[in-house]
């Protein structure tokens, strides 16, 4: 499984400003595969991002807003983007502030189609 997921992640990580991309199990927060640049703590990012995504999904469901398609978290020195495939897999990217979120979002959706 990892062999087929790796190109998906590498394509994402090649985007300008992307520091890391990970495929994570939403329910248990564990990394399935990752492509990390130096200095990223993949396990920690995966567990916390999956937890945030899960809570966002449950909040949207409680508010009867339907499925969450894309989650973006902006922080002082970067941003985290998460998209879910609806099969317990979520793709997490960690990017610089200056990264092109539109491009990342598009690549995330392409990647989701490949892992769905």
């Amino acid at each position, binding site marked *: 499984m990892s062999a087929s997921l790796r190109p998906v992640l590498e394509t994402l990580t090649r985007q300008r400003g992307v520091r890391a991309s990970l495929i*994570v*199990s939403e*329910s*248990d*927060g*564990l*990394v399935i595969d990752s492509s990390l640049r130096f200095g990223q703590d993949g*396990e*920690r990012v*995966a*567990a*916390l991002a*999956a*937890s945030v995504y*899960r809570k966002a999904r449950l909040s949207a469901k409680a508010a009867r807003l339907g499925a969450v398609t894309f989650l973006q978290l902006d922080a002082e020195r970067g941003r985290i983007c998460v998209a879910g495939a609806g099969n317990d897999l979520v793709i997490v990217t960690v990017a610089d502030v200056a990264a092109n979120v539109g491009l990342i979002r598009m690549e995330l959706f392409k990647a989701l189609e490949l892992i769905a």
Partner: protein
Amino acid sequence: MKIAAVEPWVEAPLKRYVDDARARLALLLHPNGQVLAQAGFTREVDVMTACALASAIHATAGELGRQVEGRAFGGLHYAGPEKQMYLAPLQTSRGAYICFTVFDDETSLGLIRIYFEELGRDLAAAALEAPPVSASVLAGGFEAELNRNLSALFRPRDRWEGRGGSQ
């Protein structure tokens, strides 16, 4: 949330672990099954029985690990339909301990593992600063020691702290 500890130096790290990881329950025990501290919704289990069973599981898993790959297995995770458990050892300058954690879908195994690592670091640091132990837990006065521990752990309401107030 209820928290009680036989030795005060474990209390703060264990409370932080349960709070941060959003665990329902954490029991810290000696590998022989003697409970050292409890935190969380401890009324959900019979603490003494849970400690005895956790100790036995840890010993069994350790021996299985030694049989299979020449060394004891580390953490053990079991996922039930609603609740999950994570059982793993911790090493401090005061010796080895086992932490038995019960959690539900408020959190995840990934988060539990992350905060468990922090618990290990916090306990190791706290162990260095804590006053020395007066006697071995298995010394001749074992029964008196056991009774002292039980009364410390199960003393009435004065050690209860508020988190949701559901206990």
